[in-house]
């Protein structure tokens, strides 16, 4: 009887303890401090595991969702076109270098770019944890890009030394885009699971697989001209007014190790920034 009573007390104490910890860790200030400490404790190992994963992701196509035979066929088809493209590329290279220098200068003049290492990814969401936070002047709403100036996403939450970056592929992330050389307007939508699509593209607009998709600068989230991805598969329907297309995002999570956060002047207007900050409180 006594042993049974003691066991019941132990169980009750354990349940109360777990419930107390859960309640305490749901207080926003405690939660932020705790998560910052937890990220800090694990960050060094996680950065190494992330780097190892990036290397493995590049060399192990087993889980890439594409069979080796398919990949071989696709690569052979691509390679046959490369000989012709090479000659054109050589001619454009000189001009491109000059223009790129100009673009780099412009972007770095406009934004103070902070380099951050990726430590991990939030479960079932396209949100990355990076090792720079409020102490590094990072704030919610700031945009993140990669070394190729491809748009990565935006900061949605900051801790003292870490931040959460919502990738453009995260569910419900959307922004205005400009497609191809004709600058066709449209809307980029994240679908989750590292997938994305474009919508609100007029039915008569000429979309083609491989067309580059850039940020348009409208909506205030990103400046114009940043690469977002390429058109993968067009979906047209005679009944619909607009056409949609699957997008291959330019930012490759599988190979990424670092991102840049634009901490200087960020392009969001104050109303949108306030909305995001309010939504994360």
């Amino acid at each position: 009887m006594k042993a049974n009573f003691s066991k019941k007390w132990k169980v009750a104490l354990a349940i109360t303890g777990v419930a107390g910890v859960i309640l305490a860790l749901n207080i926003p200030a405690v939660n932020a401090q705790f998560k910052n400490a937890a990220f800090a404790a694990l960050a060094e190992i996680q950065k190494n595991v992330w780097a190892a994963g990036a290397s493995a992701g590049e060399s192990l196509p087993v889980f890439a969702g594409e069979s080796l035979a398919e990949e071989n066929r696709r690569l052979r088809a691509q390679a046959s076109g490369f000989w012709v493209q090479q000659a054109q590329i050589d001619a454009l290279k000189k001009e491109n270098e000059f223009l790129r220098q100009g673009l780099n200068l412009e972007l770095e003049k406009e934004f103070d770019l902070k380099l951050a290492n990726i430590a991990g990814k939030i479960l079932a969401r396209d949100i990355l944890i990076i090792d720079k936070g409020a102490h590094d002047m990072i704030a919610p709403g700031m945009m993140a890009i990669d070394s190729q100036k491809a748009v990565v996403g935006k900061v949605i939450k900051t801790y003292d030394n870490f931040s959460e970056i919502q990738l453009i592929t995260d569910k419900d992330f959307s922004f205005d885009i400009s497609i191809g050389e004709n600058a066709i307007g449209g809307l980029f939508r994240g679908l989750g699971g590292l997938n994305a699509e474009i919508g609100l593209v007029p039915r008569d607009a000429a979309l083609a697989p491989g067309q580059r998709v850039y940020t348009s600068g409208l909506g205030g989230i990103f400046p114009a001209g940043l690469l977002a991805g390429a058109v993968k598969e067009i979906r047209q329907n005679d009944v619909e007014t607009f056409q949609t297309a699957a997008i291959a995002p330019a930012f490759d999570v599988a190979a990424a190790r670092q991102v840049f956060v634009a901490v200087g002047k960020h392009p969001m207007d104050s109303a949108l920034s306030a909305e995001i900050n309010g939504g994360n409180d």
Partner: protein
Amino acid sequence: MAEMIKKLILIAAAVIALFLLQTSFAPHFPFFAGRWFEWANFITLPVVLFALFERRRHNLGWGLAVLGGFLLDIYSARFFGFWMIILLFAVLAIKLGIKKYVRLPSFW
């Protein structure tokens, strides 16, 4: 007692290693990008399997559920405690429900 502590440390180390694989290694593979991976992930599956094949009088499954849930909660967009509660209920269901009616081999 010493044996128990040794076992506990080994299991905790294994759960932390699985957690690192879950949050920092698996995201590099599109195979693990699906919605299914939220539920059947590197932590929930071992916790459930451990509880299934644990002797009824042993209690390590509970500790494993708390530790695994706690780690998942750090890297979850849901409220803190969600995974701890889910895993504790899963272990409870296994220990009080399934194991009462289904005879499974016990490995630990």
